[in-house]
Every structure is written in structure tokens, then in C-alpha cells.
């Protein structure tokens, strides 16, 4: 693991945690993409490859037998993670490969189908309104910390049937795994143990006291080919829902508000042409895709002229794919009514984000509720916005101000 200052050559020495890259990765992605070697390599952070062209990233996603999902975090796991009481717990189906992937995924997909997640819409809207009630009179709020960050954790906790009062703890555990823990192995292992210890206790509770209409109870009662699924599988699914369902969506909501705070023209367009909302949400997902995944190379292979070895890590930069001018006209421009948009913010192929319909619902409700209640807002200080990056990129501090409504009316 090396951190010898900022890279001078991004094609052979990129650093996904470099402060400039975290703040604004797109120019550096473009530099790599347009170089003679659009599949970059680095020895930093355990070493990895990073394709930057849309076609290459999609091709790698489709070749799941070569680019496996046995580990999907952008930095290799610390040794403390591979041992211990929960060594057998992964995060299916995101960490599964065929053939098991098929039933791992099929078991949970109905929970996340559009018609199934629709029942969370009213609750999500009420939650968004309550959050806005808390700061609207002040004329100022942190759109990332006071709003975006507060939404998905409560939706996921509701879905899992776990205590909403623990929202702050869940958030801190997930940041420990996906954000802070990536550069601090001790935090990463501790956070994983807290998550799995929590779900171990939740499983024990459901076994003793099965609940009606409860996802964890249902998962424990799932049978595949006549056999009950293992408890490691159920723990893994719960682990995935918490870890993958929180700061990903919060980052998408935060980035979108950060964008809208700086674009009065786009706020006006959404007000005057509300019919473009569905297209606009896809465009915001494209332009500010939060998630980069990883794949592990199964066997020595050559990919776009790069000699990859068994065990090598490949970063699936969906944010880079979604800014490729070969696929998207004016990729760095946010065009809210963009007609052609085959974006891969939720990945591509068999590992397409299983929660994408829920994430979209949360993004839509969060942005529409904000725009109804706070139609005009701006960044207090653009240079003071802070970002997290690496696996999931989004604003972590994003102070905005807005005119207060003298009538005090609420929606």
C-alpha cells in the first residue's frame, strides 16, 4: 500500500482517494480515457486496473466468468475480516457468482420489483417532509447531512424491520465499511463485526419470535430445492441491504441537490415541465453516478491489451463509463431531457443493482419533495462542500441557503 503524494501519471499510478480525484474525478477520468491506455493501472491501495471507456466497462461486466464478484470492494479486505465468527458471511447476491448467483438473486428480486417497492412511497414522502420541517424556518440546511443522509437509512431499516432509532448507528457502521474503513482497515473490520453482530441477534430474535409480514422472518423461512437456505445466506442478504442501500442512495440524492443548487435554469425547467422528471432523474444518475464496484480476475487473461493475472482487482468505474463521449453526446453536460441514455449507474449484466427500483423511488421522492417545499436554494459556499469517494462518491457536507417562507406554510 503506497500513498506517495499525488500521482503525476494517472494512467500508471492513479489514486482513487486523491483529494482532487474525490472532489472532481471527471477531468482525470477523461485524461485516462483519451490516453493511449484507457485501462489504467495502479499499485496503490493493493493494486488495481481501471477501465474508463463505456464499452470496456460493460464488456467486463458481461464477462462474469472472468471478472468474478468474489470480492467487490475497491480495496482488498484486511486480514482481520477473513477470519472470525462471520467468516462465511458475504453479501449475496452481489458477491455471488453463477451458478449460486441465480437463486441468490431470484430469492430477493421480488422484494425490489417496482410494484413491490411502491408501498414505501408514502412513508418516504412523510419522512422527507418531516426532515424539511426541521430546518425550513432556519433558511439554511446541510442538504447532505441534514437531508440526503437521513432518508435511505430509515427506508432500509423499515424494510428490514429493525429499529429506526438506530439510524445514526447504522449510518456510522456503513460509513465504516464503505467510506472511512477503506483507508482504515481497523475501522473496516470493526464496522463489519458490528453489522454482523447486530444481524446475528436479529436472526436469533426472529427464530424465537417469528413476525408476520417481516423480511428477515421470510428470508429465514425461504427454501430452495426443498432445503432451507443457510443462516449465513440470510445474514449476508441483510448485510448487503444495509451496506449497499444507504450511502449509495444518499450520495445520489446529495449530488443531485448539489447540482440543482447551482443551476437555477434546471430548477425552473423542472417546475415548468414536470413531465421531464423521469428523464431528469436518469440524467442526474448518469452524470453523478455514485458507485464504483470491483471484480476479481479469475484466470490470466488479456483485456484491451492489458495482461491481467488471476486474482487481480478491476475497478468497475460506472461513473467513468457514464461520462464517455463515445456513448453520450456532451457527456459532461447535464441535459435534463436527454433522449438517449443507456447509463450504467446501477451496473450492467447479471449484477445490476438489485435495489435500483427502491433507490429511484427514494431519489424521486426526496428531490420532488425538496423542490416543492424549497423551490429556490443555493450553495452557501461552493468551496466548503466536502465529498467522499472511492467506492461511493457523494457530498458529505453541502450547506445551502434559501428564502424563508413568511407564512410558514407546509406542503
Amino acid at each position, binding site marked *: 500500500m503506497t500513498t506517495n503524494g499525488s500521482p503525476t501519471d494517472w494512467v500508471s499510478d492513479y489514486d482513487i482517494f486523491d483529494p482532487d480525484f474525490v472532489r472532481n474525478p471527471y477531468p482525470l477520468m477523461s485524461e485516462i480515457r483519451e490516453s493511449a491506455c484507457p485501462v489504467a493501472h495502479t499499485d496503490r491501495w493493493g493494486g488495481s486496473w481501471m477501465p474508463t471507456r463505456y464499452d470496456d466497462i460493460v464488456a467486463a461486466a458481461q464477462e462474469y466468468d472472468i471478472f468474478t464478484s468474489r470480492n467487490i470492494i475497491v480495496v482488498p479486505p484486511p486480514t482481520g475480516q477473513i477470519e472470525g465468527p462471520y467468516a462465511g458471511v458475504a453479501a449475496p447476491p452481489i458477491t455471488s457468482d453463477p451458478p449460486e448467483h441465480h437463486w441468490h438473486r431470484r430469492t430477493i428480486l421480488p422484494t425490489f420489483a417496482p410494484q413491490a417497492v411502491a408501498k414505501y412511497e408514502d412513508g418516504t414522502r412523510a419522512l422527507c417532509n418531516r426532515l424539511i420541517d426541521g430546518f425550513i424556518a432556519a433558511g439554511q440546511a446541510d442538504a447532505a447531512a441534514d437531508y440526503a443522509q437521513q432518508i435511505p437509512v430509515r427506508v432500509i431499516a423499515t424494510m428490514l424491520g429493525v429499529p429506526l432509532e438506530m439510524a445514526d448507528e447504522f449510518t456510522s457502521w456503513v460509513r465504516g465499511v464503505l467510506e472511512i474503513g477503506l483507508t482504515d482497515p481497523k475501522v473496516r473490520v470493526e464496522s463489519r463485526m458490528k453489522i454482523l453482530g447486530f444481524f446475528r441477534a436479529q436472526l436469533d430474535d426472529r427464530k424465537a419470535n417469528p413476525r408476520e409480514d417481516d423480511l428477515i422472518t421470510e428470508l429465514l423461512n425461504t427454501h430452495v430445492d426443498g432445503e432451507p437456505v443457510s443462516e449465513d445466506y440470510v445474514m449476508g442478504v441483510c448485510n448487503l441491504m444495509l451496506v449497499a442501500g444507504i450511502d449509495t442512495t444518499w450520495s445520489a440524492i446529495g449530488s443531485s441537490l448539489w447540482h440543482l443548487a447551482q443551476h437555477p435554469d434546471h430548477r425552473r425547467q423542472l417546475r415548468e415541465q414536470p413531465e421531464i422528471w423521469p*428523464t431528469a432523474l436518469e440524467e442526474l444518475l448518469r452524470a453523478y453516478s455514485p458507485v464504483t464496484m470491483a471484480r476479481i480476475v479469475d484466470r490470466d487473461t488479456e483485456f484491451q491489451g492489458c495482461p491481467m493475472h488471476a486474482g487481480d482487482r478491476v475497478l468497475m468505474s460506472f461513473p467513468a463509463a457514464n461520462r464517455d463521449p463515445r456513448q453520450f453526446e456532451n457527456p459532461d453536460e447535464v441535459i435534463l431531457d436527454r433522449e438517449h*441514455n443507456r447509463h450504467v449507474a446501477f451496473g450492467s449484466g447479471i449484477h445490476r443493482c438489485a435495489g435500483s427500483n427502491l433507490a429511484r423511488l427514494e431519489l424521486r421522492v426526496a428531490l420532488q419533495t425538496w423542490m416543492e417545499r424549497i423551490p429556490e436554494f443555493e450553495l452557501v459556499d461552493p468551496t466548503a462542500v466536502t465529498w467522499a469517494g472511492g467506492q461511493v462518491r457523494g457530498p458529505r457536507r453541502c450547506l445551502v441557503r434559501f428564502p424563508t417562507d413568511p407564512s410558514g406554510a407546509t406542503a
Partner: protein
Amino acid sequence: MRVTVDGSKCHGHQMCAIAAPAVFGSDDYGNAVVLMDPVPAEQQAAARRAEANCPERAITIEEDPQS
């Protein structure tokens, strides 16, 4: 206009149903199903947009022969 979804390519992004909700929907697993085939004239622009937004290129559109 006729539309088909290749079930072996569709991975349930649902971007077709977002672009053309009258033409495409979802099965129990979130994969695309065609709701309207043939596609009436007033839905054809939406159906073309759905094709142009499918990240898996799973949708095929067969335009009516020019008469």
C-alpha cells in the same frame, strides 16, 4: 410497430418502463414485459426512446413497412 424484449439480455433495469410506461412493465422479478404489441402510433416515440435507454440492448423494434 412491433416490440420484443430479449429475456436473456434483460436484467431488470426498468429503464424501458420509465421511458414508455404504457408499452413496458415489470414481471414479479422486475424484468421487462411488453404490455402493448403492436405499439399504437401515439406510443411509438416513447417505445423508440425506451429502446435507446436500455443499457443491455435487449429491446428490438420492428418499424411498420412504409406504405
